């Protein structure tokens, strides 16, 4: 893509290699910097800025190419096959992109061919009848392009929500969404509604309710069916016990990503999103009485729900709540031990994971480890606890953490492995500053992790054994 500075169109000529360098920056967009990775055209910057608009609203010419895989199988593969057609398509695109409107503010200096190429790669991969998981994982670890709901579908496949066999997708989706509705019916109870339904079943005479005059009839009620009952079988008692849980969840959801309109806007869309998040967390807590709800689960849920809700495919976006519930359960199955307080000191708890990370650091860079642990006595719990339990959602900008999660979810060994590697990489990237600092400066630095070049970070993470 020609950078905004060059006015002339150079469509017929191929793009010179030096223009592909990541050193070219686009028009500066202050909130989200450092989110440009080679080949990943982060529309996420504009996505995040736009006020609650689903991605489909963008005036982005490339969205037209990256339609949901089912529809464009033939056309996509055709265009990939025919060389000159592809060239012409690319030329077309670069032409369009050059004249593209102001909504498309990311005039990044990468070649459009590489972005489209990656989009097409994903589309072909996802449109196969039987998805090759290893291949998809390999592709995703380099970053999923932000177009046409590719990220949403890829994450669903990577997390095992969608089966590998494409033919089974429709039935699986229906089944799981129905299961969620059942959960919702059962768990979220309104006692007044319950009593009303019971009466309707007992066929209360409507005439009685509308009697004009006279003393009102008293009816026997089955024991414990009144609001003050303390019986464990009473619907009311359950309800009051749940209100405590609901209040805790409510408090946390209201504080999720206060800077994003998607979550904390003044509009109905944001309220709807918050209600959905609350329901998901509530149902999860009711289904898992072992760990119930722990503060922080809302942060792990937020990116999942965001990605699924902003899916270009309308039918998927409408069921974002159900899909993110199941994916959340999947994701948390790897990490639930971190949230359980009793397991803190055990071999699977958070302390042991933190020590795994420090051991990794020690193997890779003894000097830094020594300086942190012994010289400046920074207990890794002070910073690594949040990094690990919240899967680094709090350390980077939202768009960056989406990119990071691409790598996390695509690791065949499980997300924990690569999470530890990225944590190590985060320490290594700040090596010189950490070595020069003492307890206070180091702690401050690590608890407010500064913005670094994201690609560099991921490269370092790859190199950590």
């Amino acid at each position, binding site marked *: 893509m020609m950078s905004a500075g060059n006015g002339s169109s150079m469509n017929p000529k191929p793009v010179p290699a030096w223009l592909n360098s990541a050193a070219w920056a686009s028009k500066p967009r202050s909130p989200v910097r450092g989110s440009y990775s080679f080949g990943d055209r982060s529309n996420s910057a504009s996505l995040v800025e736009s006020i609650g608009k689903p991605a489909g609203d963008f005036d982005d010419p490339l969205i037209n190419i990256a339609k949901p895989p089912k529809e464009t199988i033939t056309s996509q593969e055709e265009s990939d096959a025919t060389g000159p057609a592809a060239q012409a398509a690319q030329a077309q695109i670069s032409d369009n992109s050059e004249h593209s409107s102001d909504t498309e503010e990311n005039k990044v200096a990468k070649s459009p061919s590489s972005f489209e190429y990656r989009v097409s790669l994903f589309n072909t991969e996802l449109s196969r009848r039987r998805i090759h998981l290893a291949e998809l994982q390999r592709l995703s670890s380099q970053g999923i392009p932000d177009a046409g709901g590719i990220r949403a579908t890829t994450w669903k496949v990577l997390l095992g929500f969608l089966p590998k066999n494409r033919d089974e997708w429709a039935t699986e989706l229906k089944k799981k969404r129905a299961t969620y509705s059942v959960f919702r019916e059962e768990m979220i109870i309104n006692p007044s509604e319950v009593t*009303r339904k019971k*009466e309707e079943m007992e066929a209360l005479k409507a005439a*009685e*309710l509308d009697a004009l*005059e006279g003393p*009102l009839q*008293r009816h026997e009620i089955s024991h414990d*069916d*009144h609001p003050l009952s303390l019986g464990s079988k009473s619907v009311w008692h359950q309800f009051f016990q749940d209100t405590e849980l609901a209040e805790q969840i409510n408090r946390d959801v209201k504080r999720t990503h206060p800077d994003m309109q998607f979550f904390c806007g003044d509009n109905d869309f944001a309220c709807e999103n918050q209600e959905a998040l609350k329901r998901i967390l509530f149902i999860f807590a009711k289904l898992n009485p072992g760990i119930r709800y722990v503060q922080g689960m809302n942060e792990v849920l937020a990116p999942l729900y965001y990605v699924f809700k902003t899916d270009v495919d309308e039918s998927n976006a409408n069921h974002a709540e159900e899909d993110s519930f199941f994916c959340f359960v999947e994701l948390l199955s790897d990490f639930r031990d971190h949230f359980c307080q009793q397991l803190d000191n055990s071999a699977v708890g958070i302390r042991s994971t933190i020590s795994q990370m420090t051991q990794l650091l020690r193997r890779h860079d003894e000097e830094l480890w020594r300086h942190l642990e012994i010289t400046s006595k920074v207990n890794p719990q002070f910073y690594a606890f949040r990094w690990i339990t919240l899967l680094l959602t709090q350390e980077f900008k939202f768009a960056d953490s989406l990119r990071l999660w691409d790598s996390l979810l695509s690791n065949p060994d499980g997300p924990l492995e690569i999470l530890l590697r990225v944590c190590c990489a985060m320490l290594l990237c700040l090596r010189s500053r950490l070595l020069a600092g003492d307890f206070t400066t180091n702690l401050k630095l690590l608890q407010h992790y500064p913005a670094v070049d994201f690609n560099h970070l991921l490269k370092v993470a790859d190199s950590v054994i």
Partner: protein
Amino acid sequence: MVLVLALGDLHIPHRAADLPAKFKSMLVPGKIQHILSPGNLCIKEVHDYLKSLCSDVQITRGEYDEDTRYPETKQLVIGAFKLGICHGHQVVPWGDLDSLAMLQRQLDVDILITGHTHQFKAYKHEGGVIINPGSATGAYSSITYDVNPSFVLMDIDGLRVVVYVYELVDGEVKVDKIDFKKPQ
């Protein structure tokens, strides 16, 4: 779903020492949104106890109340319903439904909560509903000694009210319920 507790005529400490233990064990803070009391508590300690159950307590003056600042009548709106409170000793003959209906029309409320007779009553007429929660401690009244402790909990949900009547009969708590709808 708003829970409103109505109880009155406790006459603590003159005629009764305290609420029955079974009632007290059921009344825990956090469940009820409003408390309406026709009066005759009679002392400040009872008022404080009610405040501990719920922060919104509305009381009207009964003839034995030691706090003279309570109003004679009160009106408030909860959900779609207008509720009124009055002790009832001012309305003569005591407990007469027609006179109370007149008072209800005067206050222009859908539900009138009164007391003084220490007998539970729930009566519907074309102007609305009159509820007498009885005496929550079972204290004797000016008319009779034979009083069962009782109080009332209303669940106001849209245009419907479900009234739960709690009565202590022979040492056991009996709960009944009454439904009525507000005409559109």
